[in-house]
C-alpha cells in the first residue's frame, strides 16, 4: 500500500518547548485518520506541518515517497487541501473565493468558474456563487472553504475541527462527503477533532495527541467537560469532579487509573470525590488487575493483584471509586 505521509523524528516549536514531537508516524493512501486530543495538544500544529505551512526544525517528512525540502515546498503544498477551523473568506463572491486557487494554477476564467460551481454543488451550496462570501453564516462559510479546498483536487484532505463552526446539518453533510470522497476517490483524509465518537465512527484510525506527542491509545479516564462554580467543579455532564484548587480553564479532565481507590462500601471519612458505579470489566495486566467501572463515565482503575478485596470483585459488583486529589489533572 502507498504511504501518503511518513514522518520521522519530527520536532516543531514556536520558539519555546516543542509544540509537536513525533518519533514516527505513517499515514497510508486512502486512509481516514482522526487526530484526537485536548486543546493545545498539537493537533492544529501537526495539520499545519502536514500541509507544509510550518517547516519542522528537526526531522524528515516524506509525502508519497518524495522527501520534503524547502525547494519543493510550493509543489507539495499544492497537493494538500487544508480546511481551517475558522476559515478566512476573501472579500469577494463565493464563486470567486472557490475559483481563486484554480486561477493561481493557471486555470482559465470560464473553466475555473465551472469547476468552482461544481465544487459548490458538491458541498450543497449550488446557487450561492453570486453571494458575497463575508455575508454567509459560520456553517456556510465552512462549506465554501471546503469547496475551495476540494476544487483543487488535493491528494490529501486535512480538516481542522470541521464541525466546530457548523450546525448539525452542515456537520453531517460534511462527514458524509468526506466518507464519499474516501470511498469513491480513495482520498486520504486527516481530521483533527474533539468529537471522539464521530471520529471513531468515521475514521479508520484514531491518533491521540497529548502535549504534542502521539499516543497509541487514549489516556485512561480522559473526560471532556466544562468548569463550573468558579472553576471548583469539573462537569462532564455525567459526573462532577470536585477540584482541589479552583481552575481557570480546562476542556478535559484526566484521572490517573492507579490513583483511584476502589471501596466495596461507601467511604467512612469525608472525601473530595466519590463515584458509585458497577464493575463492567475485569482483566489481569502485568501483575495488576484492571477494573472497568461504569460510574456515569466509564472508569479504568488499576489495582495491585495482592489487594485483598480484589477477590470479592466480580462483574456487576457495586463499588465506590475514590480518586486521590493528586491523581486528577485538567488539560
Amino acid at each position, binding site marked *: 500500500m502507498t504511504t501518503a505521509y511518513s514522518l520521522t523524528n519530527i520536532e516543531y516549536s514556536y520558539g519555546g518547548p516543542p509544540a509537536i514531537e513525533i518519533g514516527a508516524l505513517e499515514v497510508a493512501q486512502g486512509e481516514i485518520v482522526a487526530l484526537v486530543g485536548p486543546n493545545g495538544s498539537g493537533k492544529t500544529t501537526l495539520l499545519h506541518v502536514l500541509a507544509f*505551512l510550518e517547516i519542522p526544525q528537526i526531522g524528515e517528512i516524506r509525502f508519497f515517497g518524495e522527501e520534503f525540502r524547502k525547494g519543493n515546498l*510550493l509543489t507539495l503544498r499544492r497537493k*494538500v*487541501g487544508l480546511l481551517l477551523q475558522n476559515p*478566512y473568506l*476573501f*472579500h469577494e463572491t463565493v464563486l470567486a473565493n472557490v475559483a*481563486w486557487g484554480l486561477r*493561481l494554477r493557471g486555470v482559465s476564467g470560464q473553466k475555473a468558474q465551472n469547476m468552482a460551481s461544481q465544487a459548490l454543488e458538491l458541498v450543497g451550496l449550488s446557487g450561492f456563487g453570486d453571494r458575497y462570501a463575508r455575508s454567509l453564516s459560520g456553517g456556510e462559510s465552512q462549506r465554501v472553504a471546503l469547496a475551495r479546498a476540494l476544487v483543487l483536487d488535493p491528494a490529501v484532505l486535512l480538516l481542522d475541527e470541521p464541525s466546530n463552526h457548523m450546525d448539525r446539518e452542515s456537520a453531517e453533510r460534511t462527514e458524509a462527503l468526506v466518507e464519499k470522497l474516501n470511498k469513491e476517490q480513495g482520498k486520504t483524509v486527516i481530521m483533527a477533532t474533539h468529537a471522539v465518537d464521530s471520529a471513531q465512527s468515521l475514521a479508520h484510525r484514531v491518533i491521540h495527541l497529548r502535549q504534542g506527542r502521539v499516543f497509541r491509545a487514549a489516556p485512561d479516564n480522559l473526560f471532556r467537560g466544562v468548569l463550573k462554580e468558579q472553576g471548583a467543579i469539573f462537569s462532564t455532564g455525567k459526573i462532577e469532579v470536585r477540584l482541589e484548587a479552583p481552575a481557570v480553564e480546562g476542556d478535559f479532565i484526566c484521572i490517573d487509573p492507579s490513583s483511584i481507590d476502589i471501596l466495596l462500601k461507601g467511604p467512612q471519612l469525608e472525601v473530595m470525590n466519590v463515584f458509585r458505579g458497577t464493575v463492567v470489566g475485569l482483566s489481569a495486566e502485568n501483575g495488576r488487575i484492571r477494573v472497568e467501572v461504569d460510574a456515569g463515565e466509564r472508569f479504568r482503575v488499576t489495582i495491585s493483584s495482592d489487594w485483598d478485596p480484589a477477590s470479592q470483585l466480580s462483574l456487576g459488583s457495586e463499588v465506590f471509586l475514590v480518586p486521590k486529589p493528586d491523581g486528577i489533572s485538567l488539560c
Partner: protein
Amino acid sequence: MPHDGANLSFLITSLHSAFTLIFGFDDSVYFIVWTSLKVSACATVLAAVLGVPLGILIALNTFRGKSIVLVMLNTLMALPTVVVGLLFYALLSRRGPLGDLGLLYTPLGISVGLFVLAIPTVVNLTLAAVQSADPRLVLTCKLLGATPVQQLWKLVLESRFAVTAAVVVAFGRVISEVGIAMMLGGNIRGFTRTMTTAIALETSKGEFELGLALGIFLLSVALAINAVLFLLQRSRA
C-alpha cells in the same frame, strides 16, 4: 484703523474676484492648478508603486533592525517639508552632486522632493494596514498554493480600502505643502508655480483675489480627498 464694514467689503470683493477667475476659466489659474495636480499625482503614483509593496514586505517579514526602521518611518511621517526642500536643493543645485541632471526649478524636480515626502506616509500606512489585517489571510493564501508574489497581490486586494486610504492621505500631504515646491520649483510663472507657492506669493504682493481663488481650489481638493476617505470607510463597514 479701518472699521469692520470695510474689512467685510474687502473680503466680499476679493471672493467675488476669486469666483470670477474660477468661473471665467482664467488660463493662469487653471495652469497653476494643473501644475499642482501634475507634480503631486506624479509623486504619489511613484510613492504608491514603491511604497505599497515595501510596506507589505516590512509588515510581513521579521529582520534585524526592523524596530529601527519602524521608528525611522514614524519620524519621516512628520518630516518638515522645508528640510526636504533644503536637502534636495543642495543635491540638485548646480554645485550639488545631482546638479548635472538639471532638475532644479523644474516640475520633475518638485515631484522628486514630493515623492520623498509621500513615501514614508504610504509605507507606514500600508504597513499598519497589513499588520492589522486578519492573520488568517496570509495563511489562506499559502494553503491555497499562492506564490509569494500572488500572496502580496492578494494582500493588496484584500487591504485595498486601507491601502487606497494610505495613497489618498499621501496625495493630500504633497498637494498642500509649500516648502518643497518653493525651494525646488522656484515658483516660476507658467512653469513651476503651484497652488501653494502662488498663494504665498500673491498674498505677499497683496493680490488676494488670485490667492483666494487658488485657496478655494485647494480646499476643494481637500474636500474631495476627505470624501473619498469617507466613502472608503463606509464601503468597508
